[in-house]
């Protein structure tokens, strides 16, 4: 199933990026465990990263449409 494989690859890529960016932003000095502040920060970073992904996706799609209309005129 080509479509399913594509969706899985996309979700895995997103998961990896979310983990990397949350870790980089929230765990600047890794200690003996994730503390409450770090967990809260990771939860927020996750939600914001997914919002950012959706926003970027819409902005890119809109731009592609605008550019293709421009070329047809």
């Amino acid at each position: 199933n080509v479509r399913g494989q594509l969706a899985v690859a996309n979700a895995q890529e997103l998961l990896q990026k979310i983990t990397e960016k949350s870790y980089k932003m929230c765990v600047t000095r890794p200690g003996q465990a994730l503390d409450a502040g770090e967990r809260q920060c990771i939860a927020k970073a996750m939600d914001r990263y997914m919002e950012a992904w959706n926003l970027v996706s819409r902005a890119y799609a809109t731009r592609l449409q605008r550019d293709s209309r421009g070329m047809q005129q």
Partner: protein
Amino acid sequence: MADQELDPQTQAELRQFIEVENSKARFQSMVHNFTDMCWDKCMTSVGNKLDSKQEQCLVNCVERFLDTSYFVVNRLDELKRRA
């Protein structure tokens, strides 16, 4: 390989399906790259939602990157024509 066994219409449908899926994959791959790059540019902290400044920055980051890409391609073409 097995193309010879498929009738022309099925072949055309298959080709179109592959093309559509490929362009979806390219689109998603670009979105991953843009989000990665623009997150670093625009998101120095995270709150309970994206604020309007962050949203504007993310959209501008994508738009100006594409502008840069077109500018570079067009200028290269121009330089080649003049050469």
